[in-house]
């Protein structure tokens, strides 16, 4: 799964820590998601999309290997 969370964060101008606090996870978790090391849960994806004010599909995208 690909994501452009880093870009979305830049648009909102918030740090990993800020986003983490808003969605109730640790900064390491946001970092791992951005690096593609962790496939987040649907609930967390929905929370992040709410903060970014976008659809989940606009932030997270399936890859060929998925």
């Amino acid at each position: 799964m690909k994501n452009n969370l880093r870009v979305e964060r830049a648009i909102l101008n918030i740090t990993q820590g800020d986003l983490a606090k808003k969605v109730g996870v640790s900064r390491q978790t946001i970092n791992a998601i951005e690096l593609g090391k962790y496939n987040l849960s649907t609930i967390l994806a929905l929370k992040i999309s709410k903060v970014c004010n976008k659809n989940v599909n606009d932030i997270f995208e399936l890859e060929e290997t998925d």
Partner: protein
Amino acid sequence: MKSPFLLPHQFRLVGIVLLVLFVVFFILIQFEINFRSIFDDIPVFAIWNNGILGGGDKEFFYLTHENLEFEIISTLAIIGLLFVAFSKQKNEDEFVMKIRLDALLWATYFHYIILLVSLFTVYGLGFMHVLIANMFALLVIFILRFYYLLFLNLNTLHNEE
């Protein structure tokens, strides 16, 4: 991901205290300072008592008196390890939970590989030591693996912009 089976974070400290107590007892016993007199002759209900170490005419379901040194000290270790292994991290979230479950699976495989190897390489009374170590080994391996994986993920913090 919320798990109802994890203990509150504070239990980790309690677990560490219990493990320190266990280590102190264990070291003292290695130096021939034992605590058998303190834990001697305690009434217990035996479901089964068998073999060369077990005495008496009865074998199943009876009240007896036993020396509980081994039992008490083992309990310190087991409860301590459980508390350390399964108390919540300060920053417990779904990512930590995934790391936790990955570590548990890894530890279970590793534990049984070690046991299989010992089965065919350790014989006689030595194997009884392996079995005693087995009482604690799975949790010890899990804790080491879990904290190692957490450490690896903490190390990626510098990617913060």
